[in-house]
């Protein structure tokens, strides 16, 4: 009897633990999962914002591909950076692996952030059918159009930089080989055509300011023009992989010009904060066709919202009002400064001249490849006391808190592209761009391919466009234009700098595929020639 009484609680104890199936089911209430997300319109909108964030993050780490590295690759700028830094940027500048053999992953982060952006887009696209759209078909189409635009935008960056990339159109963990670039361009072209066809034709003036930054029909049409010109130029093809003809590309650009409501800002300098200070026209101006938006709220805990690459191009570790300090990367090639006409207002708006502006720069000893010139269009800014404007605004650090947007497609570019594609108004478009640049000193010159390319060099210096403009004229042109032997100052000591044409032709102007990805793929990914 006594024993029995004891066993009752024993059995109770054991059975308590034994029958609780739910005991091991816990739930993470702060995040959703793939299974229970992508259901409502609100979910879809959040995911769409995440896709934009993915696009914005493509500039957040790695070597600042969109502007910094492409300017360095072009004849606009040298690698530069600090005198005690590694030689990665020299490797990029000179297309020479031996300049920094250990830098096998110079573009490793870039490669990763681009595929992350594409994954976000692919995840949303593949879940669009799960969303309850409540009959709002236009909303679905608009979201799909914006997402596909961003996917195309990312692929266009990647296929230009690396040439040979795996094409991921659905989320997958497979070990995918690189594809023929035509397949990538086919996806880009169809995505952009979808975006152009399915986004509303709302002119600039009618756009809701709160939506500024969203992809528009005009952005899609303008990007088609850019892709068309690059693909047909670099690969020597008559049309864009059979998807977009020259006529269609031009028609899109003319549509932007005629119906987009855009215009040129009256003074060139007003487009750039450091060139115009209080006269800066603002980000949502009538010349911005598409921009990647940045703000100062980046922190060290994973919030990435700022322009992380701009600090690379600031004056080397010295704030000189109105310029903030930076790392002194991509010093401007004096060749570019000297090529400008003295009456061209774009020169002073685009380039900081240390001597020309009588800036008291004392840090030559720390600067590699000092030329006396820095980029002005994208440079960190400081107040008279040297305090970073980004930090004054509330940014955690000037390194990550730069808030200047990257204006990827300007209306001036649309005008010049339309002129290049043979618009009947080519001379007018061309003149309009030049009139703004020269003001009262304007003298008309005839519109032709050579003059357009030359004008593009001055108009878009420091905007990450020049290098692609060179490449689309053919490797030979690009190589001979970029190659040079000159003298720069490394830590204050005069040093010979050589960029040889053979390296550019050897690599076809393409960049190094990250070696870590090649080894991870067990050799499925192949390195580009020359790297």
């Amino acid at each position, binding site marked *: 009897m*006594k*024993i029995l*009484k004891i066993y*009752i*609680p*024993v059995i109770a*104890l*054991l059975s*308590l*633990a034994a029958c609780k199936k*739910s*005991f*091991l*089911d816990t739930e*993470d*209430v702060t*995040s*959703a*999962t793939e*299974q229970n997300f992508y259901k409502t319109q609100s979910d879809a909108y*959040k*995911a769409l*914002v995440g*896709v934009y*964030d993915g696009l914005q993050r493509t500039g957040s780490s790695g070597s600042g591909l969109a502007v910094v590295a492409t300017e360095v690759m072009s004849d606009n700028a040298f690698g530069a950076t600090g*005198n*005690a830094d*590694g030689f990665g940027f020299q490797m990029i500048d000179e297309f020479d692996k*031996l300049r920094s053999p*250990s*830098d*096998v992953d110079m573009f490793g982060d870039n490669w990763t952030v681009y*595929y*992350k952006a594409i994954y976000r887009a692919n*995840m949303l696209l593949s879940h669009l059918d799960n969303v309850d759209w409540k009959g709002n078909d236009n909303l679905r189409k608009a979201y799909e159009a914006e997402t596909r635009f961003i996917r195309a935008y990312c692929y266009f960056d990647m296929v230009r930089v690396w040439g040979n990339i*795996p094409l*991921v159109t659905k*989320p997958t*963990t497979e070990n995918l080989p690189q594809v023929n670039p035509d397949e990538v361009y086919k996806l880009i072209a169809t995505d952009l055509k979808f975006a152009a066809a399915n986004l509303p034709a709302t002119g600039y003036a009618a756009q809701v*300011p*709160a*939506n*500024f*930054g969203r992809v528009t029909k005009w952005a899609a049409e303008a990007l088609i023009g850019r892709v068309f010109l690059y693909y047909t130029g670099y690969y020597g093809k008559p049309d864009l992989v059979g998807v977009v003809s020259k006529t269609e590309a031009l028609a899109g650009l003319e549509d932007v010009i005629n119906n987009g409501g855009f215009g040129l800002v009256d003074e060139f300098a007003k487009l750039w904060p450091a060139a115009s200070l209080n006269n800066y026209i603002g980000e949502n101006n009538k010349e911005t066709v598409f921009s990647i*938006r*940045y*703000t*100062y709220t980046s922190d060290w805990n994973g919030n990435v919202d700022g322009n992380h690459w701009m600090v690379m191009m600031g004056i080397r*570790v010295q704030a000189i009002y109105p310029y903030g300090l930076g790392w002194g990367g991509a010093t401007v090639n004096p060749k570019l400064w000297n090529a400008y006409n003295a009456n061209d207002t774009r020169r002073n708006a685009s380039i900081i001249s240390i001597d020309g502006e009588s800036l008291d720069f004392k840090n030559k000893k720390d600067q590699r490849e000092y030329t006396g010139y820095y980029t002005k269009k994208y440079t960190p800014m400081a107040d008279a006391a*040297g305090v970073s404007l980004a930090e004054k*605004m*509330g940014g955690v650090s000037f390194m990550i808190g730069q*808030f200047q947007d990257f204006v990827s497609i300007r209306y001036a570019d649309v005008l010049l592209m339309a002129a290049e594609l043979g618009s009947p108004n080519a001379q007018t478009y061309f003149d309009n761009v030049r009139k703004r640049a020269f003001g009262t000193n304007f003298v008309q010159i005839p519109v032709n391919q050579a003059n357009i390319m030359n004008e593009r060099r001055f108009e878009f210096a420091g905007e990450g466009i020049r290098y692609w403009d060179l490449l689309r004229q053919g490797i030979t042109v690009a190589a001979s234009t970029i190659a040079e032997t000159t003298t720069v100052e490394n*830590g204050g*000591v005069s040093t010979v700098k050589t960029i040889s044409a053979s390296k550019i032709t050897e690599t076809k102007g393409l960049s190094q595929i990250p*070696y*870590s*990805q090649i*080894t*991870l793929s067990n050799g499925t990914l192949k390195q580009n020639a020359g790297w």
Partner: protein
Amino acid sequence: MKSAKTIRFASMLLWGIFSLFLVSTNALAQTAKVSGTITNQRTSAPVPGATINVKNSTRYTVSDDSGKFSIEAAASDVLVITSIGYSPEEVNVGAGNLTVHLNESNNQMEDVVVIGYGVQKKKLVTGANLQVKGEDLQKQSTTNALQALQGQAPGVQITSSSGQPGDGFNVIIRGKGTIGNSGPLFVVDGVQGVNINSINPADIESIDVLKDAASAAIYGSQAANGVILVTTKTGKYTQKTQVSLDAFYGIQNSPKKAQLLNAKEYAIIMNEQAINSGKSPYFTNEEIDKLPVSTDWLDQMFVKNVPTQNYVLNVNGGNAGSMFSTSMGYTSQGGIVGGSDLSDYQRYTVKLNSEHKLYQDIVKLGQHLTVNNVNSHGIATGGQYSNSLRSAFSTTPFLPMYDSSGDFFRSDNLPWNPGKVGDPQWDNSVSNPYASMAYNSNSRNNTQNLFGDAYLLIEPIKGLKLRSSIGVNYWSNQGRSFRPVYHLSIFDKNDTSTVNQSMGSGRTFQFDNTLSYDFRVAKDHSFSVMAGTTAINTKGSGLSGSNWDLRVADLQHAYLDVAQNRAAESDHLSASGGPFEDALLSYFGRLQYNFQEKYLLNATFRADGSSKFAPDQRWGYFPSISAGWVASRERILQDITWLNFFKLRGSWGRVGNQSVPAYQFLAPISFSQASYIFGNTEGLNTPGAYPSRLANPKVKWETSEQTNIGFDATLIKRLNISFDYYIKKTKDWLITAPILATAGADAPLINGGDVQNKGFELALNYHNTIGKDLNYSIGANGSYNKNKIGNIPTNDHIIHGNTNVLFANSLEFYRAANGLPVGYFWGLKTAGIFQTVEEVNSYLSKTGKVIQPDAKPGDLRYMDLNGDGIIDNSDRTMIGNPNPDFIFGFNVSLDYKGFDFAVQASGVAGNELVKSWRGPGGRGNYTTEILDRWTGAGTSNKIPRVTEDGANWAQFSDLYIYNGSFLRINTITLGYDFSRLVKKNYLSRVRLYASVLNAFTFSKYFGMDPEVGHNEGFSTGVDVGYYPRPVTMLLGANIRF
């Protein structure tokens, strides 16, 4: 539903207990007064304070100062005599007037050790476990039990993550088994997951380490990295109340300080750098002779005579029906870097343990409870970007500490390199490292822990025990920090005061039930079987926020409510908070068998279910088996007089690891860090969402299998030997293996990769007496471990280490790869220094190509291992191993007529360290090592020439590698027991002692402390500015009433 069941259960339990009270007690037998004397067998001295208990009764007494006692007992009764430090004796009462000689319990084999969910006689143990007594820990006079354990436990490598008080410890048992969490499971009085740092070492009765899988397998899925069982002090039934006070007070100072260049040496090196970089020198000889400032920044960082103290008052006692142990403790320790103002640790502890007989010896109710409160604050002791000490190594000695008005010197508004004769030269990016530390170390953290259990022990028939306990581990913490407005340099400044505040709390409930039965079959066959269940649930949440612009900008007012949040553009209040939860459900059983205590067998099995895995992967099964043969009990060996005890042991077992983040089997959608800015207002982000990580529904337990063979022996009654050989193989690592970027999201944890640790451990202990009064003992232990990775399941079979560790933008330098030890250092091998241009030009590849065409005399000659004529990553190889081959400890102790003296030492051998106190090039200061640099042909073949771009340091090579072996004299103690002089009968012990901790370190390492416990990813031994352990001189007292 769940709660209803719990209530029903609880009422049943209460009813069950109550019913037991109804049973009546036995009648007493006829008794008479019996008296006797207790003496020490060896010295014949009387033994006061021994407990005399009549077996199977509640009657007891305690011997007086002359060892005499008297007690009511029948002639047929048996007396059980116990006293601390002696083996228990049983004597028949018989005619009475007894003299009992007690043997000092120096035979460890008679001791009882703690195993999982129970205890076992040490001589019957078949696994590889070890016990360290609380008194041996307390002898080390440390504020932390793990530090005291260092060098006392063979096979257990303990390193502090920094020398700052309150910082944690890395404990690695038998080599690193994983690149993930390699720490063991801590179980304090049966409660799992308690932070052992929150316990006062003086409260610890013993620490038991379960090293092999067979010993640890009873803890199944949590035991892959071993188990450490901590038992706190309890009272004893029928024990005289004993009050003890243990106290020490000491002062701490820095150990050997790193030697940095003074201003003159620095100026010379800067000049030489400039010349080697094609520039003219910065300073003339005249200027060098007149340098006005030469600051030794390490002198500024370290504070002298920083106090450390510890006081514990403990009361133990018990009568026939209850026993208890209560203690209160206070510990405080300041940090030697910055002193107590900047880094300090204070701990208050209260411990209440008791047990009560509710019904005879059949039903006992007991509890353990420890409550503590820890106040701490400190400096940053992490990697290069969060390390307050690091910049002191590289800051120019030209920079003064204070300006003319006595404020911290600011470099940001000074003229640049004025270059006038005698003027200091500096950069506006150079910041006063002391001031920077002072401004950035304004924090207060406060943690409360409460842990313990309530248990019910029922033994209805002899040998059958039911134990049921409810354990709790509750913690809560509050932290806040503040950054004032300051300007030191163009980078090191803060324009608006900021404040952070955080709070968190959590609890673990643990419900354990075990049923065990000890019985014999046919006298010679002893069995002990046990079955049990455990259910553990951990839950909690955290909250943190930050804001800026304090109304009153000081630490006292550093609360979110004081912030004014006046922002130029937008809101700066940020807040975040979230929960955590996990659960573990387990069933386990054990069978122990012995034949005449000669042949031993032990088998365990555990099944664990964890909430961290998908429902179909939840359950893991962990068996073990072990056997022993006490050969010395065989008749043929009993005649060998020098061999008193010999036991051969063998074991095999499987254990698991699940200490990974939860929900890896799901693909989460993250709502944080996914916003984008639309519209025209800077800072106004639109929240988004994105799929952040891939899912791995197949993720499951990491398992570790271990085979162990060993023996324990006692020779000539005085020498104890313990030896173990083991092979530990950990497989199905839970790792985040790199995945192809095209997958587009973060990698989930996968199971893959294995590592083998193979090694042996030896512990020797010898004790003897010289003459009548001089007792001594000598102990030595050592272990050898070899760590080797089997296979990593990625295409390149490598897990890459972090970049950006050694200096800004530094590349990868450690890895895990097939066939090599975990976290090995991966870099270029050098073969001396080019002495001449001819040497550069004649350093050719097979095809006749100059391998280092850009090199100049004085530069490092890198070995072209693959012979392709190019120095690149394919020439990188293993140039160092952070894992020691040997870890060892020694101790010597003597006592003579109340005097005692002890020395304890420990060390490691066969490992390498990486030191990186500055980035390559630039104008940072150097250590005096640079004085041996190359300055011309034949001057050095080891340290290359200096240049402004620091090219010789830009590549990770063996230039960064140092020998990490060291021997440290941890403790030297001399004490005397004044109770011999005082002779008050209420004072049983008045020992006063003096100790030196961290007295000497023998090492070839140039850094300040060779025991670099800072972890970098899965590697260790990386010194990026390591906070050294202090040298402590202290006085202490142990007083017992």
